[in-house]
């Protein structure tokens, strides 16, 4: 059985590719230490297993999710790594590819979303790229299924058929190279670590990879630990970064081919202009949410709820009543079914349409990328209470369910900010609170129901924000937040 690990930057279409390649998959629990689901699938008509790894920018993790990938590479040895890259963002995607290639495992790089690249009027000479990087390069477009069959046939191979890749060796500055060589030699001789793995371990250690440093400490790799101060004082990390970027730039320059340029402004960039507008952004954001509530309460949700209610309390209970009388059920049992089961479960069931519409709206917003824009628009407000715009997304998801909202908070980099976000998350009105709101609104306010519910929601938000400020003072948060979208 062959194991293929899918690895790449966020938003490169990894998951779309994963879904296209595999015909069945399963969540096999969580990755250790984080609440990220581990997804393993099987390629159609074969025994090749595909592991979907979370999207990362570099092997040196900033958030907890990202540490999953480094830990995976440290502990397991996939037979093949499929590095999914976004063809139009190759420069930054290759920074990760280099780190993976240095590991020396067989790698296939696929330039995904190749259509977007062609649209910009550029193309890469695949042979030049393959020669420079020392691994096969393929192009795919997961959305239109272009190039998938070929890629699949290359993944479905026995272990013996996969060629070994020799690890990529970049020309680091002499001092760095020497340090790497020394560390590698002592790791191989004293600790019996495979040369390739030792080489990669040394580079990553010198490059201040937090996970690798922890790994070295746990395994007591003295050759690395003893040199730590020297590596950091010499700023080898910067030297490594500059060498890599210079390598990528020269490779891409030689590989770039110009196509006939096509000019057109896509509709998405027009939408982008409005939703991220400095002044309009916030009203648009409130508008989007008002529309969402209007949809779930006034236009779709409530009418459906009413119909469902009419159906349950009308025909269904009368019918059940008749049926039970006819079969001669005990009056007690009849009362249990009609007044207990149907009325009781029905009482909860009538809120399903509203919850359903709200959930649908939230997931559409999330998948369309609007949430990332909303994070940008709201960052300034969030900064006032000491959080960043990213904290906004978990809070919004908290409207669907606080539990998933708290889980989404893991993308926030600083532990204290993460804690505050989780603590104020319960102030966001989750959908389970909706029936109660609906009840109050229905009982107390005959008109303008959507506006009333909206204001209850905003009251929750305001209290949450005040609490955040309070926690901020309580925990003495000083560090600045990392905010890059």
């Amino acid at each position, binding site marked *: 059985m062959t194991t293929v690990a899918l690895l790449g930057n966020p938003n490169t279409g990894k998951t779309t590719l994963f879904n296209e390649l595999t015909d069945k998959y399963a969540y096999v629990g969580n990755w250790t230490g984080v609440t990220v689901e581990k997804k393993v699938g099987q390629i159609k008509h074969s025994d090749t297993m595909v592991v979907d790894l979370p999207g990362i*920018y*570099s092997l*040196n993790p*900033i958030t907890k999710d990202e540490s999953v990938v480094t830990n995976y590479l440290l502990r397991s040895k996939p037979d093949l790594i499929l590095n999914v890259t976004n063809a*139009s*963002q190759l*420069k*930054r995607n290759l*920074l*990760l590819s280099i780190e993976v290639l240095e590991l020396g495992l067989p790698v296939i790089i696929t330039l995904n979303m190749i259509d977007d690249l062609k649209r*910009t009027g550029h193309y890469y000479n695949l042979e030049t790229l393959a020669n420079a990087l020392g691994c096969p390069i393929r192009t795919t477009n997961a959305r239109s299924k272009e190039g998938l069959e070929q890629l699949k046939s290359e993944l479905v191979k026995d272990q013996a058929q996969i060629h070994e890749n020799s690890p990529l060796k970049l020309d680091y500055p002499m001092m760095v190279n020497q340090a790497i060589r020394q560390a590698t030699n002592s790791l191989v001789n004293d600790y019996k670590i495979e040369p390739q793995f030792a080489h990669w371990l040394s580079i990553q250690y010198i490059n201040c990879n937090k996970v690798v440093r922890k790994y070295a400490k746990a395994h007591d790799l003295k050759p690395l630990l003893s040199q730590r101060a020297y590596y950091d004082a010499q700023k080898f990390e910067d030297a490594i*970064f*500059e060498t890599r*970027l210079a390598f990528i730039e020269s490779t891409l320059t030689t590989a770039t081919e110009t196509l006939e340029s096509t000019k057109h402004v896509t509709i998405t960039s027009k939408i982008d202009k409005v939703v*991220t*507008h*400095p*002044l309009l*952004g916030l009203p648009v954001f409130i508008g989007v949410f008002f529309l969402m509530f209007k949809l779930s309460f006034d236009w779709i949700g409530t009418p459906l709820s009413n119909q469902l209610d009419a159906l349950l309390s009308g025909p269904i209970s009368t019918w059940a009543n008749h049926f039970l009388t006819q079969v001669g059920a005990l009056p007690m049992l009849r009362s249990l079914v009609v007044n207990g089961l149907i009325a009781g479960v029905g009482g909860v069931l009538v809120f399903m349409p509203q919850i359903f519409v709200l959930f649908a709206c939230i997931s559409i917003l999330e998948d369309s990328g609007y949430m990332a824009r909303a*994070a*940008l*628009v709201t*960052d*300034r407000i969030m*900064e006032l209470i000491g959080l*960043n*715009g990213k904290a906004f997304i978990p809070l919004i998801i908290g409207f669907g369910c606080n539990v998933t909202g708290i889980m989404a908070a893991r993308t926030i*980099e600083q532990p204290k900010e993460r804690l505050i976000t989780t603590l104020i998350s319960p102030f966001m009105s989750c959908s389970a609170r909706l029936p109660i709101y609906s009840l109050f609104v229905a009982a107390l306010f005959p008109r303008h129901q959507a506006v009333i519910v909206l204001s209850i929601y905003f009251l929750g938000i305001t209290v949450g924000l005040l609490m955040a400020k309070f926690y901020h003072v309580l925990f003495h948060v000083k*560090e*600045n937040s*990392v*905010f*890059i*979208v």
Partner: protein
Amino acid sequence: MIMKQFTIHQFNGLDDSTTQRLHSLGLQTGSVLTTVRFYPFHGPVIIQVDQQRIGIRYQVFRQLIGG
């Protein structure tokens, strides 16, 4: 100030995680960035580097262009 070009002068004064994330997006000293949008009250700044748009905080932006 919209659509103006700046050159990144330095990464000093930024915390490690911010520097690292900007590095992994392909930004380095000497990179040319174009500002796309400024949010009011010194809110975030959208910059464009290598056809990618990145939102950063105003303070980070000031540091990068060395002001």
